[in-house]
């Protein structure tokens, strides 16, 4: 009995000790450069973050690595729970002693991780979370937060700006639909975004007869559609990330809502979304940063290489991870070291063509937005699951088709 109890103590120690690996060798010349990927491993965005990174790592290693050293990847599951996210960062930085961190998806988790990344004085290249708060401290508390960079996606305030542009100049000016209803999930990032969106749309000459929020767990959108119809709206802007947009779209289709739908729908960016909703997304026009089109010379080769190797379509974090690893490798090569300080200086000077646009950082280490830099497109789901880029004009490769039930 006594032995059992003492045995239990050792079990406990062992369980905790299980996570302490054989200490990573100090970075001697020739030792691999360790890249820590922190991502929700069970989700598609997580899998694609790892695989996109792997693709980049293999390419770079094939060409001799960085500063004569191979690149190596260590993955930790951050889930969508901030507590797990924080221990993931601690494991990667203190145990696995990674030289750089790449990853992210949920803004809540990333924001929770930031102070701990700062304490570990490790560079962090964000590839999945869009909250403006993530890069806010880079300028205000540079000493502690200079390690943070956002490679992907665009800060949500830029997403809002591009949405305004789309609604005013395409939906309003070109298609003549000027009464805009806005519905968004009841989440902070949406609440932050909608006032600016509304103002921009109204300033641009359109009207907003309805702006409503719905609970993230909503499973029945019929009341909402009812209100939208009653408002006389001609176009329905949706702003959805965590809520089940598949339900939204399916019910929109089933209820034959005679109003075209579009906006920011994170899940709809996924190339497989159309199939997942049984084709009911037809006509939905969403903001997309990453798709298989000649956005940059690297986009299609990357996409095809990913599909060939992993037998599935990539989502946006795949391209983000791929770009992040490449730009880190280039910055380290220019700095001729992987010490954080010099690499940060080189990262700030990044000017690289990525898979979704030209990558450069502004003074808050945030991905630059604008013509010539990172931009987004508005893409419509069409017959057979095809995606047609309808805006901006320079990139359009298809024509906008009014959904059948909206045709008068």
């Amino acid at each position, binding site marked *: 009995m006594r032995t059992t109890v003492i045995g239990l103590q050792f079990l406990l120690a062992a369980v905790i000790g299980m996570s302490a690996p054989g200490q990573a060798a100090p970075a001697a010349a020739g030792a691999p450069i360790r890249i820590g990927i922190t991502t929700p491993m*069970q*989700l*598609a965005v997580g899998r694609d973050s790892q695989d996109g990174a792997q693709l980049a790592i293999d390419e770079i290693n094939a060409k001799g690595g960085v500063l004569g050293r191979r690149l190596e990847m260590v993955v930790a599951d951050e889930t969508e729970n901030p507590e797990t996210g924080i221990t993931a960062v601690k494991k990667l930085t203190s145990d696995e002693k990674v030289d750089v961190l790449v990853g992210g998806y949920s803004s809540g988790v990333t924001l929770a991780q930031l102070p701990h990344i700062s304490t570990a004085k490790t560079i962090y290249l964000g590839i999945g979370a869009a909250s403006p708060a993530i890069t806010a401290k880079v300028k205000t508390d540079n000493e502690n937060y200079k390690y943070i960079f956002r490679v992907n996606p665009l800060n949500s305030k830029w997403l809002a700006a591009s949405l305004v542009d789309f609604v005013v100049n395409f939906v309003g000016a070109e298609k003549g639909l000027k009464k805009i209803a806005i519905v968004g999930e*009841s989440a902070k990032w949406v609440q932050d975004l909608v006032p600016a969106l509304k103002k921009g749309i109204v300033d641009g000459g359109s009207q907003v007869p309805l702006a*409503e*929020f*719905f*609970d993230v*767990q*909503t*499973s*029945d959108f*019929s*009341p*909402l559609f*009812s*209100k939208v119809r009653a408002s006389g709206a001609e176009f329905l802007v949706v702003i959805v990330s965590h809520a*089940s947009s*598949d*339900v939204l779209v*399916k*019910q929109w289709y*089933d*209820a*034959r809502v005679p109003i075209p739908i579009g906006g920011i729908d994170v*899940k709809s960016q*996924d190339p*497989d979304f159309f*199939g*997942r*909703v*049984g084709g009911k997304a037809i006509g939905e026009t969403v903001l997309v940063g990453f798709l298989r089109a000649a956005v940059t010379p690297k986009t299609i080769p990357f996409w095809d290489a990913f599909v060939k190797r992993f037998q599935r379509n990539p989502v946006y974090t795949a391209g983000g991870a791929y770009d992040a690893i490449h730009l880190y490798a280039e910055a380290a090569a220019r700095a001729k070291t992987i010490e954080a300080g010099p690499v940060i200086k080189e990262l700030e000077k990044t000017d690289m063509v990525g898979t979704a646009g030209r990558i450069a950082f502004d003074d808050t280490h945030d991905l630059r937005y604008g013509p010539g830099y990172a931009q987004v497109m508005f893409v419509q789901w069409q017959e057979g699951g095809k995606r047609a880029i309808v805006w901006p004009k320079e990139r359009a490769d298809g024509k906008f088709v009014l959904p059948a039930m909206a045709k008068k």
Partner: protein
Amino acid sequence: MLEILLYGAVTSAVYALLAIGFTLVFGVARVLNLAHGSFYALGAYLTFAFGTRLGLPLFAAGPCAVIAVAGFGVVVERVFVRPLRRSPLAVLLITLAVALLVEQGLFLVFGSEVRNVPAFVAANVSIAHVDLGGQRVLAFVVSLALLAALRTFLLGTRNGAAILAVAQDPEGAQSVGIDPNRTFSLVMALSAGLAAAAGVLVSPFLTVQPTMGLLPMIKAFSIVILGGLGSIPGTLLAALALGYSETAVAYLTSGSYTELVSLVAILLTLVLRPSGFLGARAAM
């Protein structure tokens, strides 16, 4: 107004289907089965698997899924619940663990992204200018049919009578020769089958993802408690109340308050009417 009536009816009917199995299990076995949400999720996923992966026509895939999940319910009862029935908390926790296991299994087998179950009935139905998807109407009709069938079974067959007897008085039932264990298995199978049916019916117009069972589970739990644990009419009443109040609130106010209103309603009901609407057993 009509919209609230029609949409609320569909919501209430499905809630009733989900909650009634839960109430039966509690009434008969005096345990709360937290794996109930898993039955719901498995119903949807198996329909997807049979329909899409195996190519069965939907009207066959659905019932097959229901039967498979009913069987799974019996397995859960025999293997996990029966040995621990003396401790309600143990049953609670082990069924919770089973629910977690199922959820993880779904993640690993089907992936985290939503799956598509095509509508059984593609046509649209228009009732006085209110557009209802055909699937919703089907869900309503089938739910009512299943509930009616359940009533017939409970009141009109020997097995059904056995269930009611054990729910009323387990020892008394045993003394007249009713095997409580067999009854528990039967109730679990029924409960699982009904929950799975709910999952099958709603999967075309709601979401199908590994975590889909949690929220309906909590709703079922709330409905059962509100209606009065172990009371079938109470459960039906509470399902109606919750279904309609949610729909009405969403129509009349903002959609971001529906959950809050439900929760406050639940709390208030418990405070003001502690034994639920029709709870016979005292809750104080």
